[in-house]
């Protein structure tokens, strides 16, 4: 049961007779009368089991966008029902207004929209739907909660997609589709076509010209159908916050941007999220890739475990048989020396090209540059030590032949893509 503000207002009116009669007994009698009326109202209120609710939530929404979920309320009884519903959602689902008043004739159904603006990635769950019905006096009523499970999958924001057009232009420059046509490493013979003025005379294919009787040129295109394996480290270091988000979020952005770019470039992309076991996987080809990637990575959360690098090496070896680009999105710091990352990179580098992407902490840079007092000087010393250790680990990885990208969280995705394009242009995939 519940009471409304009208009950309180009616009880407050009891001050007048109490003052006129100058008696506390009158005040008590009045309040008891009001409570009795409220109880009567509860008894007369329609039963909550006469109200049915139905939730409809859309499948997925991108983080930072809003979505409308609907809640249908039906009167299943034979009396008119007045009341209110609360469409409860998790706080991070960002529900704007969750309470809706209704007045339903028998058999009537009313739909209410709750706008969600999620603030966190992952599956956002709905709570129970709470139904209140009011009695005929509007003083009180019944209240029950009804379990109506629903969830909205919140996909990663993919804020770095603004970098995609410029990278696609670079890709076309490597590709034969733009005016710049270069043959050499990283490109393969595509086709012969008729010479047009402006083509480089060096690209004329004389044998074909002799055979066809007209001047033809060779065209080249970047290598296609290469394999790209992106492995996200979801172990304990990915849980640390850099800026406002965990390191993992920067890795997810980089995965999405690289996935989009590489699939445009005609490469076969597969992604895996990994700590000790595989947490998520996406390996479609073609246009479904991006949807699958976003869906698979939406629910990935950092786990407080040490990564099992040898298991990752075995996983990658079992997934791809030919030479591929293996992108490890992890954290390069002094712990990489003994966590097994170096050995894993060495093992992978034997058959594949490894690209290690790591998120740098802008706070470290701020500490390194802080000169305010002696305390800051020690901070700068500690930050310099951390930087040197990371450099040492990165140098060790580079000596193994791996590419290393150390970037601030917002720059990781474009930096990884630039390195991918450079590798592609150099024919090292």
């Amino acid at each position: 049961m519940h009471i409304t503000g009208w009950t309180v207002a009616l009880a407050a009116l009891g001050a007048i007779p109490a003052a006129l009669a100058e008696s506390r007994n009158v005040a008590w009698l009045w309040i008891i009368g009001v409570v009795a009326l409220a109880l009567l109202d509860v008894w007369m209120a329609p039963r909550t089991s006469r109200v049915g609710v139905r939730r409809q939530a859309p499948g997925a929404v991108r983080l930072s966008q809003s979505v409308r979920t609907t809640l249908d309320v039906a009167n299943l009884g034979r009396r008119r029902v007045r009341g209110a519903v609360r469409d409860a959602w998790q706080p991070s689902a960002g529900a704007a207004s969750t309470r809706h008043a209704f007045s339903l004739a028998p058999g009537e159904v009313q739909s209410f929209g709750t706008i969600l603006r999620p603030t966190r990635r992952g599956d956002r769950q709905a709570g129970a739907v709470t139904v209140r019905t009011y009695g005929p006096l509007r003083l009180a009523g019944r209240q029950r909660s009804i379990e109506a499970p629903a969830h909205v999958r919140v996909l990663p924001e993919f804020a770095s997609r603004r970098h995609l057009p410029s990278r696609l232009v670079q890709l076309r420059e490597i590709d034969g589709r733009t005016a710049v046509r270069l043959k050499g490493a990283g490109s393969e013979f595509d086709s012969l076509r008729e010479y047009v003025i402006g083509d480089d005379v060096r690209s004329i294919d004389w044998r074909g010209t002799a055979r066809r009787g007209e001047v033809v040129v060779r065209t080249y295109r970047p290598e296609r159908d290469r394999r790209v394996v992106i492995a996200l480290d979801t172990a304990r270091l990915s849980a640390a916050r850099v800026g406002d988000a965990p390191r993992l979020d920067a890795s997810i952005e980089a995965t999405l941007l690289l996935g989009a770019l590489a699939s445009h470039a005609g490469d076969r992309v597969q992604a895996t999220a990994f700590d000790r076991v595989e947490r998520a996987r996406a390996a479609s080809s073609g246009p479904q890739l991006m949807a699958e990637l976003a869906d698979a990575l939406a629910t990935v959360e950092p786990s407080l475990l040490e990564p099992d690098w040898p298991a990752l090496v075995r996983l990658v070896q079992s997934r791809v048989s030919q030479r591929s680009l293996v992108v490890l999105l992890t954290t390069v710091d002094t712990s990489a020396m003994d966590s097994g990352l170096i050995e894993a990179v060495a093992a992978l580098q034997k058959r594949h090209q490894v690209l290690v992407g790591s998120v740098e902490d802008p706070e470290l840079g701020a500490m390194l540059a802080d000169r305010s007092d002696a305390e800051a000087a020690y901070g700068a010393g500690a930050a310099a030590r951390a930087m040197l250790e990371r450099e040492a680990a990165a140098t060790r990885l580079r000596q193994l032949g791996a590419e290393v990208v150390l970037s601030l969280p917002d720059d990781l995705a474009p930096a990884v893509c630039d390195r991918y394009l450079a590798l592609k242009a150099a024919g090292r995939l």
Partner: protein
Amino acid sequence: MSAATEFRTAPPPVGLRERAGRGKLGIVALILFVALVAALAIGARPGDYVALSTENSTPTGTRAVAQILRDHGVAVRQVDRLAQTRVADPAATTVVIAEPHLLTTGQLGSLVDYPGDLVLLGSSDESLEALGVPAREQIVGLPETAAAQCEDPDAIAAGSVRVDGWGLEALDDGSDLCFVQRGGLAAFARVDDGGRTVTVIASTALVTNDALAEHGHAALAVRALGRHPDVVWYVADGLDPSLLTWAGSGTDGEVPTEVEATPDFLPPGTGNAIYALALTALLAAFWQARRFGALVREPLPVVVRASEATRGRARLYRRARATGRAAASLRAAAALRMGRRIGVGRADGREALVSAVSRATGRTTSDIERLLYGPPPADDASLLTLISELDALESEVHRP
């Protein structure tokens, strides 16, 4: 399947019998039973710990003397409020007042008007003066056992008592005082106040359960208190303002205590209106406290800043005053950055870097040697100086 069947509805409410079947009701009943038993057990414990109370069996109480009096056929009746005394026959009743320093002026006045015998356990200057005892109370500095040293038959029968705690100092010749110790303080006084007797036992310890069996305490107490077949016993507590009552006192002993709650400048009934509004506030609390459905749980992620480890290391450096370590890191980092800028790798060695930096900045090699590879700074101040010098050198190298 119609659309209506897809709707979810609340399950029928759980009845009392089902709840009992689930054991919840049994648990509630058990808790209530235990609470009831506990309340009874606590309520049955002897709760009277008031000093000098006849119900108090602890060392500070007077239950022993009351029982001895009852054994001698004296009816001892203790009252909580002075108005409850209602002495039927003052001539055949002894009124015992314990802790008289807590009596109000009005109560003292009623004692003065009372025609029967009075015994004070304890004393105060006000009560002694009002009841005409020519003495003043003093703290006993030298507790000792004293002989009667007076003509009072009760005192002589008792022989000697211990003067302790509080005593009486004579204001006149001291003929009414008994058991005077060496400091001149008496334990006992008795004056005849025209038709009635006022007895003061200033050293109250001698009537308590603790000390009743010592010396002549029991004899003195029983003789002083048991002169009449009725004893009315009152322990003053300072909270009860009512007056002593007896047959013919012409009053019920009640003193008007309630102050009028409504001052004159407010209309009548304001207090009752506020009372009604206070009751309303209870309803308002229920109105607001009833939650519209349960809260939804939010599983929160771990929040650890990535720089925590580095900050911890900085605090360790500072606590250990590790200027050498901090300076070495900063020097190595500066050398790494400058080497990258001017194309000298780590593998090229110290001399190559020093000479390259020297060429880039125009400084002497010894100066650069000192800055990059010199002795570690000794304290915070030289660390700060070194850092600023390194910054200056680096900015010269990075200058285009």
